[in-house]
């Protein structure tokens, strides 16, 4: 049973802080001013083929998105950071309130004023919609899309703020803005390859076209694998699992403060989900007539358009595969604290030995991840029917980069250099940057592929994608570099493990 909001501690703390009359008046005036100015600006745009009421309705819809998704997310981030910064989070962890109430309090309490504005504008839109071409149904779908996106953004803001803020250190909401701009190029990059991308729909941009009259929309259709889904359904399919993953992390953040936000199982589920999204949308783009007709990046255009798409998508997939695996390594590799705890408990037989324990090595889970990703390549191999050798090489190279980085991270975290960030950064820079650079310098026209250039993923992956796209066979021995490096690093990790825990 959910508590009433006036009995919800975290909701109340946000409510009291934001309900000062001066705050309400200033913010309310700011939002109203923005709506009015946007309306008059829109009315002044020449060649606008809409009546004043319809323009006002669209302005209200855009304002809803701005207030809830932008201002709301910043308030959620700011007030969640405050909990951690001033130490009151410990009191809430210590309180007997149910964790779900704590999460609801933070997610909805911090942006209650924005939700109120959103609700008010929604009612206004429902009244105005029948008088325009947009209609009530599209307004409802648009609002549903906004609610889903807001839940995703706000819960993500709570999680990021709780994980990144330290006690007595202020965490600026600019972190959120910075993160947004950091992720944006990634969205841009992906959009250039395909008409519809996961990130595009995860941001709710697809379903945002419900804000316009029927027949007018931007961006892609909802192609996912072989299905053309309604945009709101596709958005829900992508956003709801992410919201669930974030809420699961928030539960752990409250109940297990010294454990990673996600368990190893959860990380693998998230990776599986993201690989499914990428694959589903890539395969969807194969069926999408709009994608085949010229939106593609010119690099991948060819006489055989669909084959070009497939190779382009294979490149995209391998990039996502490697960098997702590298990101997952940060969660899958145990911290020294978790490792020690697991060793103590398992020695005393208080916990069963499991590869999925927070303190266990990342090797097992990463192998599962690698197999997940490799299985998805089946789609490409089956669809192309050509270039299978290069595709197979690409899978092995990806696996080498993922395993190599994970071994290095584990070696760093559990070894004597664990508090020495400079050591970690220097070795990584040499391994991924300087040595491949040296490889370029000493290569003599043999297409740059040698043992050194293939060492790091930044260069090796790009070279290999080029060979896949052009169906050329590279110098095969050089392709062993990532797997050999990974093998050496894991041997070091396991050797130290043996020394530490002699049988």
């Amino acid at each position, binding site marked *: 049973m959910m508590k009433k909001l006036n*009995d919800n501690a975290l909701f109340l703390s946000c409510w009291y802080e934001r309900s000062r009359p001066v705050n309400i008046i200033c913010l309310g005036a700011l939002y109203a001013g923005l709506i009015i100015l946007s309306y008059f600006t829109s009315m002044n745009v020449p060649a606008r083929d809409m009546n004043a009421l319809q323009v006002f309705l669209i302005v209200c819809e855009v304002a809803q998105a701005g207030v809830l998704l932008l201002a709301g997310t910043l308030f959620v981030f700011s007030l969640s950071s405050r909990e951690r910064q001033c130490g009151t989070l410990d009191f809430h962890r210590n309180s007997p309130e149910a964790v779900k109430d704590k999460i609801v309090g933070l997610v909805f309490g911090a942006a209650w004023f924005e939700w109120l504005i959103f609700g008010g504008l929604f009612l206004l839109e429902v009244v105005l919609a029948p008088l325009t071409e947009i209609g009530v149904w599209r307004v409802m779908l648009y609002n549903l899309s906004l609610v889903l996106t807001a839940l995703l953004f706000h819960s993500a803001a709570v999680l990021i703020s709780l994980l990144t803020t330290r006690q007595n250190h202020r965490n600026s909401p600019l972190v959120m803005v910075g993160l947004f701009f950091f992720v944006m190029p990634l969205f841009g990059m992906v959009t250039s390859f395909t008409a519809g991308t996961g990130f595009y729909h995860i941001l709710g941009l697809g379903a945002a076209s419900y804000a316009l009259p029927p027949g007018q929309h931007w961006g892609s259709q909802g192609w996912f694998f072989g299905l053309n889904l309604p945009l709101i359904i596709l958005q829900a399919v992508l956003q709801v699992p992410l919201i669930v993953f974030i809420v699961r992390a928030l539960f752990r953040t409250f109940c297990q403060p010294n454990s990673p936000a996600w368990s190893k199982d959860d990380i693998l589920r998230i990776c599986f989900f993201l690989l499914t999204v990428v694959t589903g949308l890539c395969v969807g783009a194969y069926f999408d007539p709009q994608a085949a007709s010229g939106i593609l990046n010119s690099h991948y255009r060819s006489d055989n358009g669909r084959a070009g798409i497939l190779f382009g998508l294979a490149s995209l997939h391998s990039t996502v595969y490697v960098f997702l695996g590298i990101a997952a390594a940060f969660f899958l590799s145990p911290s020294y*604290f978790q490792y020690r*705890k697991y060793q103590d408990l398992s020695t005393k037989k208080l916990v069963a030995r499991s590869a999925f324990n927070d303190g266990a090595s990342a090797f097992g889970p990463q192998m599962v991840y690698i197999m997940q990703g490799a299985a998805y390549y089946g789609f490409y191999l089956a669809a192309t029917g050509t270039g299978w050798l290069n595709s197979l090489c690409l899978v092995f190279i990806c696996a080498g980069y993922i395993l190599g980085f994970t071994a290095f991270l584990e070696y760093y975290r559990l070894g004597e250099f664990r508090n020495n960030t400079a050591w970690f950064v220097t070795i990584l820079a040499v391994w991924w940057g300087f040595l491949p650079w040296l490889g370029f310098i000493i290569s003599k026209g043999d297409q740059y592929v040698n043992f050194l250039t293939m060492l790091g993923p930044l260069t090796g992956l790009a070279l290999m994608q080029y060979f896949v796209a052009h169906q050329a066979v590279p110098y095969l021995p050089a392709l062993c570099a990532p797997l050999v490096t990974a093998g050496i690093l894991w041997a070091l990790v396991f050797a130290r493990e043996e020394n530490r825990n002699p049988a």
Partner: protein
Amino acid sequence: MSCVKVVSLQVNYDEVRAVDNISFELEKGRVYGFLGPNGSGKTSTIKALAGILEPACGEIILNGHDLATARQKALLKVGYMPDFAPVYENLQVWEYLDVFAAAYGLPSAERPGHISKWLEKTDLTSKKEALVRGLSRGMRQRLVFARTLLSTPDIILLDEPASGLDPISRKQMRDILKECRGNGAAILISSHILSELSEFVDSLIILEKGRLVMSGSIEDIRSRLGGGQKLALRFSRPEDGEIFRNLLAEENIEAGRVVQDQERYVVIFKGSSGAAGGFLQKLMGRGVSPLECAISSDDVEDIFLKVGAREVA
């Protein structure tokens, strides 16, 4: 009746084992002094009991509920006060208390009454409408103390609660805690100001390097440490001093247990609590009438120094 049971608790931070396999129980209606030098693991233990720190291993049972498996029930009647005052700077004093009254499930209709009561007890009524950011350090400490006791907890965990408080506020705090003990609460209090613990602590738990060095009632610990009575004497005539020294030799009291400060002697007695009284009786029986004479037991500070806990390396 025990309401807190800690079994083989272990808390780790990276390379440091802050709490190493300690076990103890707290009974209702008793105040426990939690002693140990800096870094001995007091704060880590209290945080683990409050559910803020995950133990590496061990079991914590609060009011019959395992903290690891029934967290919500276990924490229902636990009040925790850390060594600094976490507050919402932009909330008013009553709003701050209202937030935490709600967190402990007090119905909204009853909350104002509870808040007024605790504001009065902690002498903050005049600051009810003030913003927390305008409070002094001592006032913030009192506010957090009020927050801790707002839900009338059965288990009260206090980590250096008196730091930043003036003498009057300290006395107020002691009186409130005595009242809580009278109402059946078990209180675990960690403090460096040992003299203030002496007055109302019933039992002690002493840690050193994360390990439990000694625990039990003060009387029990005194006797385990070999009694612990001090007899202070001052003589008016020089011959009385001679008789005193002879008696010391007859009673086999080593020189190390006698401290002389000009004309004043302090004799430290081990063994039964009547040893000092018996010695004084024998002395007076030989015609000595001291100018000053006082018998006192070891206080918390003496016990702590005797145990000789050292800091973590």
